[in-house]
């Protein structure tokens, strides 16, 4: 089952490319995404039971062969990717049909499936070089998908992401190459065992720096985020939702995996000044991009900046280097995907009906598209961190982790971030509900778009109230990743 979750979407992409243009590629891709959800749920349950699942590619034992390895940390991620894909793909059909010419559909869905295969591959592989391969697969697919946006600026957005993304991937590859030169292995577990012996060498330090910077480019940590707002704004709606929900999250996971498993927290936070780098950047990023979000006229772009800010929260949790901080970061990875997914899908409904997501079309939308706007408000409340939503759960853990460390200024930063979120969300709500429309005709989005949107909204509340699954997995993952911190063997 473990390799199938990557192989099926990858082969599925080839099949999709061969299908005739029209609805068929979409239906096929949806079927594949549902299979992935079924498989991921089963795998996550197994990983929680057994602790670690391992599969050897071609029967070659690690460290020589490629190993796929699932533990609670990436089980959560695999589940997240599959869940979002299974909800967004049914939505993608009608939404993309209105934004992308029909003749392109086979390649469009082929690219989408390749993107999913890449994301899933990164999350399940236990091999450092394999991470790079899947990173490139999903990135190349993403460049194509962004370029399909109907605005011509989508092409420049795609191109600048291509440049930045390639730089990031190359940095990552250089880092992995240096590690291979030094240790002769690419298996993550094996690397983790061998690095402590050579931790003093400059080569390891250089490799660490290359990998961290490369991944931070991919996950759009401030100030390496400049590609993200354009890419999110001009990509087709469904693609933005999927990218915002999964792509940066996978990069966050890679960062966690390399810092905590491969290099080990003792090296990353003891020998290297990781915390001194990540925490200030996260803080500046989350405050400055939240402020920038307030001034945006295009709501899609506003949410894109908000995404950069939210990435700041996750990196902050990682930089805390405690079990609680890491729990908060992992929780927020999952929770933020749910809230941003819901918000971008709601925006997609608006784009579907009105052709744009500029604030100028929002007056009166509360009455014209009541369900869509209600979804937007619910997603917004979650982003702010109102109780009973997932946003509250993340924020609770993050603040608790900061208090545990006695980082009071950080507590203040997290709070100020939420207050800024109130401002940029409420700006939209007020216009939509309290300003009269010029054309008061009702134009609610079709059910095919509303149902997936509301499924995500529902999940925002579900996982905000019943947190056994998410907190359970996140705590176990964090406990496992931070063993080195508590004096145990890494």
């Amino acid at each position: 089952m473990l390799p199938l979750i990557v192989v099926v979407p990858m082969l599925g992409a080839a099949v999709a490319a061969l299908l005739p243009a029209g609805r068929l590629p979409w239906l096929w891709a949806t079927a594949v995404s549902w299979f992935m959800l079924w498989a991921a749920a089963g795998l996550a349950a197994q990983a929680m039971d057994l602790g670690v699942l391992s599969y050897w590619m071609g029967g070659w034992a690690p460290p020589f062969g490629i190993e796929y390895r699932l533990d609670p940390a990436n089980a959560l991620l695999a589940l997240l990717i599959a869940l979002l894909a299974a909800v967004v793909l049914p939505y993608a059909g009608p939404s993309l049909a209105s934004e992308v010419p029909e003749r392109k559909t086979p390649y469009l869905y082929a690219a989408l499936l390749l993107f999913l295969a890449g994301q899933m591959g990164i999350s399940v592989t236990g091999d450092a070089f394999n991470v790079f391969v899947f990173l490139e697969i999903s990135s190349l697919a993403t460049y194509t998908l962004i370029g399909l946006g109907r605005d011509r600026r989508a092409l420049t957005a795609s191109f600048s992401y291509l440049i930045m993304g390639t730089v990031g991937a190359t940095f990552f590859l250089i880092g992995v190459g240096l590690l291979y030169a030094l240790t002769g292995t690419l298996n993550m577990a094996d690397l983790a065992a061998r690095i402590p012996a050579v931790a003093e060498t400059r080569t390891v330090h250089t490799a660490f720096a290359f990998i961290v910077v490369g991944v931070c480019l991919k996950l759009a940590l401030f100030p390496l985020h400049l590609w993200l707002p354009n890419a999110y704004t001009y990509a087709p709606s469904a693609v933005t939702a999927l990218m915002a929900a999964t792509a940066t999250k996978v990069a966050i996971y890679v960062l966690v995996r390399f810092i905590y498993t491969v290099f080990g927290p003792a090296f990353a936070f003891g020998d290297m000044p990781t915390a001194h780098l990540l925490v200030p950047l996260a803080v500046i990023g989350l405050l400055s991009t939240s402020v920038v979000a307030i001034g945006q006229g295009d709501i899609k772009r506003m949410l894109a900046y908000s995404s950069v800010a939210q990435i700041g929260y996750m990196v902050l949790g990682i930089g805390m280097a405690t079990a609680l901080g890491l729990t908060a970061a992992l929780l927020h990875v999952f929770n933020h995907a749910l809230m941003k997914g819901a918000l971008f899908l709601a925006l997609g409904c608006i784009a579907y009906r009105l052709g744009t997501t500029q604030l100028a079309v929002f007056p009166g939308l509360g009455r014209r598209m009541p369900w869509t706007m209600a979804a937007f408000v619910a997603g917004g409340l979650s982003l702010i961190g109102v109780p009973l939503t997932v946003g509250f759960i993340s924020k609770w853990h993050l603040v608790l982790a900061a208090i545990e460390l006695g980082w009071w200024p950080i507590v203040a930063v997290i709070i100020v971030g939420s207050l800024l979120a109130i401002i940029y969300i409420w700006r939209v709500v007020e216009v939509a509900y309290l300003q009269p429309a010029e054309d008061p005709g009702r134009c609610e989005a079709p059910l095919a778009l509303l149902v997936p949107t509301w499924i995500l909204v529902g999940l925002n509340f579900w996982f905000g109230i019943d947190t056994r699954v998410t907190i359970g997995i996140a705590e176990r993952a964090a406990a496992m990743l931070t063993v080195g911190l508590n004096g145990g063997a890494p």
Partner: protein
Amino acid sequence: MIPSASTALEIAILVPLVGALLIVLTGKRPNLRETVTLVTAVALFGVVLRILWSLRREEVIEITLIEMMPGLSIAFHTEPLSILFALLASFLWIVTSVYSIGYMRGNNEQHQTRFYACFAIALSGAMGVAFAANLLTLFVFYEVLTLSTYPLVAHKGDEKAKQGARTYLGILLATSIGLFLPAIIWTYSVAGTLDFRPGGILEGRLSGGLATVLLLLFVLGVGKAAVMPVHRWLPAAMVAPTPVSALLHAVAVVKAGVFTITKIVIYIFGLDFLVEVPTERLLVYLVGFTIIAASTVALRQTNIKRMLAYSTISQLSYIVLAALVLAPLSEIGAAVHIVAHAFGKITLFFAAGAIYIASRKTEITQLSGIGRRMPWTMAAFAIGGLSMVGVPPTAGFVSKWYMIAGAFQNDNYFVLAVLVIATALNAAYFLPIVFRAFFDTEDEPPQKDHGEAPWPMVAALTTTAALVLLFFVFNGPVVDLEYGILKGPE
């Protein structure tokens, strides 16, 4: 069929929600819709009486709905303070509903279904706040109350209403997320629990200085208590229709604020612990300042509702002050004043609304001679005013008695002085209005010949005025009940 006590507790939260749903469903037929409102209000009061009955037989009721995070549940319980608040809110909801029907119809307001539905949801929030068994639950419902009253404040939808509602929501959300939530998380990280327990949960876990900081976070974070400098939302919310002002000032919102602070002082900190904290006095000064300053501002207002708003700010601080005096009798005074102020202030707002509906007058200077046209209304206004001052035979006298007795118990002469000065100021702004209404002659020929407002409004305000007088005589049961809050840990 009489439900068991713990079922009654669940029903108390659910009844208003079901009511809200029915109100939305019957929105097309005003008569049916308003019948639903009244029936729901009466049903809720009945349910709360059922809970009171079991509390008097000293049954312990505690229910846990769901465990939201490990060790943190959404749970409800009953104790004397909560039953008092629930009784008050549910009873005044009945009166306010009768009044609203007169007001909303008399004024031909728009969006009446939204109005009644949000009102019902707000009551559900108030019940949740009242019966919350821990701070987390309380916070959840506190935010429900904030969000559900936002559409009520913004009801008119014009620029002024939008401005006012923005201030309302901005301050309440900013203080609750910015100060209240961190204070809760801090409490949790120090005490390991958030349950309300007799005797408190913080004793011996926090040094005096830090305890003062935490208490300050709570006092300012519970923005609904309107202690300066977080009081500005109350005058801003005056743009709302009068029944909403009654909801804010008497039924639920501000009462939820002072209730929360009293509950935190008694059940989170514990009187014995706070008495040992010398710097706690600083907070007493802050609250004392609010009383005097708000009364002084009220003295200078020309608009009736704005004057009443500032009067509320000072009266709320009476309650917070009484809670912070930490003497057993002053805690009783705080609880009793929650009731006394509610009866008095709702009468005053009802009268102000009746004057507006009957004569369109909103300024104090316009009231000359109005007592002869609206004798019932202005008599009720006079009784309400006297209760604010604290003159026998009104409800305000009872609570002031306990507050002063409490101040003597702790030899707190600062508090004594504040109470005396505030009484003089209160008299200085209420009595001239009464004098002007009854003894001045109308200075200009009136544009409109008017009598009393529609009968539901007059009925409602006479009832509450009668309650102000009755409470002076029959306060025994309430005071006896509230002695229960002084029980130490079992």
